[in-house]
């Protein structure tokens, strides 16, 4: 029924950010039944509230600042970023400075985490490993987010045959098992830089974001204010940039943040399997791989890099959750 949206459906626009996956659906509610604004009253009518203009982003930021999950994960991530940029600030030695004589030794003064099988300082390697992890995670996330959201947004906005084709392509990519794909594709790569790994993640990761971007663009596109802009004569780019993107970007941000954590884990996994980064690169995955045969004799060599990896991944997932809570219209 073509008329249905106008006749009986409404999005709670006051808070309409869409939302990730399940949130990207339209709230079907007839106007008379819309409860929350009833409490609002709004300005005027003798019920003057705090006259300060508040945007939805500033509301979300206010929520975030009060959320302990956000504060904890934010501090962890901030710390990670700082040590990735300046690892020497807290680790004086070089991660490649190893002494086989000290192989598998426990902690010593100046070397709190002990030594690994090659006699390298676990503390220094763990600190330097953060740089690789953060670099891979951030670059892969940026690549995925840009490629995925541009393709998804265009498909969602213009629809038609291109949209159908894109949807089928994303289906195909979803069918590729990530680890198997990594083993096959990356085993032929000889380069030792982080770029092949990032490229692989972007290749397999963009469909996830593009699907979400497409969904939230379609939801936002159906809003009357987009129609209103069109009726005013607005161009496609104006509608897309000024009206649709700001209202569709929230779920993409949420999913991209959570995905960043999973890319860091994926990098470690691929390195562990020997197809990601290879020594002499410094990476938590490489260290975990190298330490696992000696788990009985030198558990500390395994414990520290895996602990760092777990905390990092968890921090990004927690951050994503906190952002989702702040942007989720249903909780407001």
């Amino acid at each position, binding site marked *: 029924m073509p008329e249905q949206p106008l006749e009986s459906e409404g999005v709670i626009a006051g808070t309409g950010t869409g939302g990730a996956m399940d949130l990207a659906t339209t709230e079907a509610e007839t106007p008379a039944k819309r409860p929350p604004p009833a409490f609002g*009253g709004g300005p005027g009518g*003798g*019920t003057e509230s705090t006259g300060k203009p508040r945007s939805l982003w500033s509301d979300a930021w206010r929520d975030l600042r009060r959320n302990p999950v956000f504060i904890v994960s934010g501090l962890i991530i901030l710390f990670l970023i700082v040590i990735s940029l300046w690892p020497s600030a807290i680790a004086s030695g070089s991660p490649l400075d190893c002494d086989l004589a000290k192989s598998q030794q426990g902690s010593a003064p100046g070397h709190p985490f002990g030594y690994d099988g090659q006699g390298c300082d676990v503390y220094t390697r763990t600190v330097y490993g953060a740089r690789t992890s953060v670099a891979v995670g951030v670059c892969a996330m940026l690549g995925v987010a840009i490629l995925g959201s541009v393709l998804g947004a265009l498909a969602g906005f213009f629809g038609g045959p291109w949209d159908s084709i894109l949807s089928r392509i994303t289906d195909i990519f979803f069918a590729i098992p990530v680890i198997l794909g990594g083993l096959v594709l990356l085993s032929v790569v000889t380069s030792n830089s982080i770029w092949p790994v990032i490229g692989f993640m972007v290749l397999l990761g963009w469909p996830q974001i593009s699907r979400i971007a497409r969904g939230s663009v379609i939801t936002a596109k159906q809003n009357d204010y987009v129609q209103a802009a069109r009726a005013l004569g607005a161009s496609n780019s104006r509608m897309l940039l000024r009206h649709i993107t700001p209202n569709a970007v929230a779920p993409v941000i949420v999913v991209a943040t959570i995905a960043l954590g999973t890319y860091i884990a994926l990098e470690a996994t691929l390195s562990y399997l020997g197809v990601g980064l290879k020594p002499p690169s410094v990476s938590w995955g490489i260290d975990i791989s190298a330490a696992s045969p000696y788990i009985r004799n030198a558990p500390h060599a395994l414990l520290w890099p895996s602990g760092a990896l777990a905390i990092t991944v968890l921090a990004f997932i927690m951050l994503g959750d906190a952002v989702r809570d702040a942007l989720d219209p249903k909780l407001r």
Partner: protein
Amino acid sequence: MLLEVRDLHVEFRTRDGVAKAVNGVDYGVDEGETLAVLGESGSGKSVTAQAIMGILDMPPGRITGGEILFKGQDLLRLKEEERRKFRGAEMAMIFQDALSSLNPVLSVGDQLGEMFVVHRGMSRKDARARAVELMDRVRIPAAKERVRDYPHQFSGGMRQRIMIAMALALEPALIIADEPTTALDVTVQAQVMALLAELRRELNMGLILITHDLGVVADVADRIAVMYAGRIVESAPVHDIYKAPAHPYTRGLLDSIPRLDQKGQELYAIKGLPPNLMNIPPGCAFNPRCPMARDVCRTDAPPLYDVIPSDGTRVSACHFWTECLHG
């Protein structure tokens, strides 16, 4: 009295503060009587109904005072398991949006039959037969063939009939209908209202009809309770209220209806906006919008005055109800 609500108070805790949704509501309904509760969005009419049914979301909602007497028993003092026995069997509710109130993956026959299986312990087969009976009763054509259909295969009016059938299944003593026809087209609205009125007579139920539409109310109600900012501002038999409203809000609502038989110049409009429930004006909540407001209205909240000539059936929460009544 079948149901009596006394001095009910409900609050909502929200991020921005406490919203006082219901602030001392009193109303009652008898067997075989239709009480229309009239109000705009935010007047607390639906929240009161949810409190009666025990389906209020708590939190953020909280009942902070009052009692709800059903057949003399205070529902608010009962445990949740005891209250559950009332729902469906003793009182039932019809919602505005029939499509989202029905389960899309079950056939309507299964959903109607469910009531008999759960509450009456019937077999599936008997329940199915009762479902067909119910659908006949709410005049769904070809009930026998359609009992296996799914909600989306019915039109809006038919779905609302199914909701009514569901509410009637266990022959409750009280039905609460929350804007039952608002989502329907005018020609279908008339069918559904006529059906509700007829079934109420047939089964001698109490009916609480919650609506914002003065026209619908005039057609079917016996009594009207007008709500504003979580309080009853006027309550009276339907004929009295239309002839001579005793509260300026009721009068304003009546005057602002565009009428078919009067091609007007300027419509009368109540000035201003409904109050913010976080910040209800002191004194009479209606005073900022009231054309008759005086100093006392800004300081003293009016009690419910008996409207004279008094036979106990008419009350108004206006200090100057006599003036309002006599124009």
